[in-house]
């Protein structure tokens, strides 16, 4: 086997399960589209999935506008996916990315509004730092609790998600409400908005997310801290034996994960939304879990998974406009992908794969860490 072929082969071995899960999900969603077409205005229309997927593809990739939309939608998912993926590497399931996203969005909105008149470089930098710091601080809490009391991070982060959303709703109505608007929201972010680099909406957050992908990869692969994180995740006993301090590494990893989650909120706020209000949704937080699972916690995998999910996001409106296939079909496709990854036996049976042990790492993280105590 030549070098290039071998590389392609090993790449395929890693990617085959996710790719086939996507294919299978698209096929099943197509069946759902066909069946449901019988009950809608279009009438029974077996070719509808081709049109729908065609429009989805066109809306996501077929023009520079579409491509920008995809990247803009993918950027927060990259950061969110990295947040979850980094946690998985350390054997932690940070479901709290949704809350950290909100905290980051809120912090950047508040700081951004305060610095709206300052020079762009200062305003943007400070707002993004605020986003990361808020996310990190929020995620540090469950990390500390896990290390020192054994409270499972899945439970504590879910709780904190709710607490955060409510706390921020209060803050935006009573603490930082901007006076000129008819509903409670933060002020205009002015110069704190991420500069648009390309086309109408490709903002600074996109290259920032891409750089972060490689930064996290570098952290995990090339630094001693990354080695510690991976060791704690792969075998906590061996980590303790080797003298690594899980009591430090677990909270630190959670904080880093939260930093990424907060940054995701920051770039979404400063690059797209522009103001914080209590109705702001945090779907990025949950989609990030899917992205991390699909990308198998690997930064490069997460890059591709985020672009895929971003493409779904970006292409869906055109699909709905031109074919009347509702946007919700995207939710179905995403859910099916995750289902097939989790139950990867189905994919293997359908495609007659033999290579075992290529399932998702996240699922084992969840089951394995449940009830396990960090020991120092």
């Amino acid at each position, binding site marked *: 086997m030549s070098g290039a072929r071998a590389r392609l082969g090993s790449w395929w071995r890693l990617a085959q399960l996710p790719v086939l899960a996507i294919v299978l999900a698209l096929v099943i969603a197509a069946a759902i589209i066909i069946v449901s077409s019988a009950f809608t205005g279009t009438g029974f229309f077996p070719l509808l999935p081709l049109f729908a997927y065609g429009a989805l593809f066109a809306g996501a990739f077929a023009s520079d506008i579409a491509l920008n939309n995809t990247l803009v939608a993918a950027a927060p998912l990259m950061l969110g996916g990295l947040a979850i993926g980094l946690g998985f590497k350390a054997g932690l399931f940070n479901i709290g990315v949704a809350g950290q996203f909100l905290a980051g969005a809120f912090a950047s909105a508040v700081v951004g509004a305060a610095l709206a008149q300052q020079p762009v470089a200062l305003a943007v930098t400070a707002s993004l730092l605020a986003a990361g710091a808020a996310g990190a601080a929020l995620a540090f809490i469950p990390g500390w609790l896990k290390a020192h009391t054994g409270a499972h991070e899945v439970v504590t982060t879910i709780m904190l998600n709710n607490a955060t959303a409510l706390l921020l709703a209060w803050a935006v109505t009573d603490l930082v409400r901007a006076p000129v608007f008819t509903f409670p929201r933060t002020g205009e972010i002015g110069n704190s908005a991420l500069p648009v680099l390309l086309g109408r909406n490709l903002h600074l957050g996109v290259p920032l997310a891409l750089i972060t992908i490689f930064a996290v990869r570098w952290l995990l692969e090339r630094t001693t801290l990354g080695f510690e994180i991976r060791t704690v995740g792969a*075998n906590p006993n061996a980590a303790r034996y080797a003298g690594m301090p899980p009591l430090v590494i677990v909270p630190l990893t959670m904080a880093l994960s939260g930093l990424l989650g907060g940054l995701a909120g920051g770039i979404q706020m400063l690059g797209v939304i522009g103001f914080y209000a209590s109705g702001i949704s945090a779907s990025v937080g949950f989609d990030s879990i899917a992205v991390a699972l699909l990308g198998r916690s690997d930064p490069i995998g997460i890059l591709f998974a985020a672009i895929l999910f971003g493409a779904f996001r970006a292409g869906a409106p055109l699909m709905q406009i031109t074919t009347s296939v509702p946007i919700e079909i995207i939710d179905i496709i995403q859910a099916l992908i995750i289902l097939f990854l989790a139950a990867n036996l189905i994919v293997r049976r359908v495609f007659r794969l033999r290579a075992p042990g290529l399932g998702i790492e996240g699922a084992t993280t969840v089951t394995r860490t449940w009830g396990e105590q960090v020991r120092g």
Partner: protein
Amino acid sequence: MTGQERVAEKAARSSTSPALEMRGITKRFPGTLANDGIDLEIRPGEIHALLGENGAGKSTLMNILYGLLTPDSGEILMDGATVTIRDPADAIARGIGMVHQHFMLVPVLSVAENVMLGSEVMRGPVLLDVGEAAKRIRALAEQVGFTIDPGARVEQLSVGQQQRVEIVKALYRRARILVLDEPTAVLTPQETDEIFTVLRRLRTEGTSIVFISHKLDEVLRIADRITVIRRGKVVGELDPGATTEQECADLMVGRSVSLKVDRGVAHPGEPVLSVRGLVVRDDRGHETVRGVDLEIRSGEIVGIAGVAGNGQEELVEAITGLRKPSAGHVSLTGRDVTGAAPRAVRDRGVGYVPADRQRYGLVLGFPVDDNTVLTEYLNEPYAHGVVRDDRAIRKRAETLIVEFDIRAPGPDVRVSTLSGGNQQKVVVAREFGGDKLLILDQPTRGIDVGSTEFIHKRTVEQRDAGSAVLLVSADLDEVLELSDRVLVIHRGRIVGEFDAASAERDKIGLLMARGQAA
């Protein structure tokens, strides 16, 4: 069994056709040829030993037989007909049973439930008929000559009992060919004898047994025929009645090996490790180390003999900082390290080979090179500041692979793909160095003669270079062979101390079992 009986039996059996035949089995993994045209013939009602070093290809061959791997070429015949074994379910259906080195039992389920798992007896469509299963299990156990409580929870059983559950599980599924992968690796001598009785009984009933081991004495005691495999090839077939341990070992390793540790007299120097009145509790809060005093000087090997579970594990964990003692003191070269963090202990010059390499010693999902720096990843030259030096790490791995003869295709393969013995060598290679104190907990468990010889030799070299060595082993022979002083531990207390020269095996055995010599 007398020699005559054995010959007669053999004659009777050779007339029948083989129960199982593997012909020209070849299996290639990236970088290695694990099986290279292996022929193996198992006759009905024989105990056939498969002898080979770690990584020789024994496990690969048996995994092929059990349907876990597909051979690249070659065929399998059962009762003269070619068969294809697609997966373990297929193997079980054909009457092949396998008892793995690491038991595949669910600890919280009862014996009966474990045995039934996968082949449940049902009462109606949804209810399990545990009672019926229990009856059959009891009958099966009696048939092969041991008692077992089908209602007992597996986690409450001793390792030897768990192994019997595994055997019953295979028989329950009507296994005609039973593969035992290193069945005695974790057993006490008494338990080994008991299992041998069971295996002989099974043989009489007509079951064929494939016995994988590298314990030469055991193989000679139990086997009817021995096939020796080296580096994926069959290198010889031996008759246990007409061979010696030395011959087996030489054939297995491919050169002349010394089964005796060759060492000079110890020259103990300054005390390195000193333990005073140490009390340690296990995870459940029971005091398992109950006031241990010991001292080890540089340049001596102190062995701790004892039946597994008498506090050895907790003692070692307390010394290395993995477990906080509830009373007493540990000091290293005069500095108190009681309750210090593992890293602090390590930094004072302690190398530690843990008993459970998969739980503590290795990260199985990591490549060999990462594992060779698992405990030194922070130090130069493996890291400069926070940045790791991949080249230095790789170089270290390559050096150790050569120096310790680790059979790995390369430094970047996952440790999980290596055989147990080679995994152990990775740990040993990493931990043996210029340390002041070397703690070896079961250093050669599950390891073949060649590697054992090597590890023993290195241990003595380490001693002669001035290290203090603490050896803990369930293998009394190993302790006696290697130690300059022997301490006997029983129920968390040191109950005897012997000089290597004056140690009496029987007396130590009694102390291990009862805590007193009479």
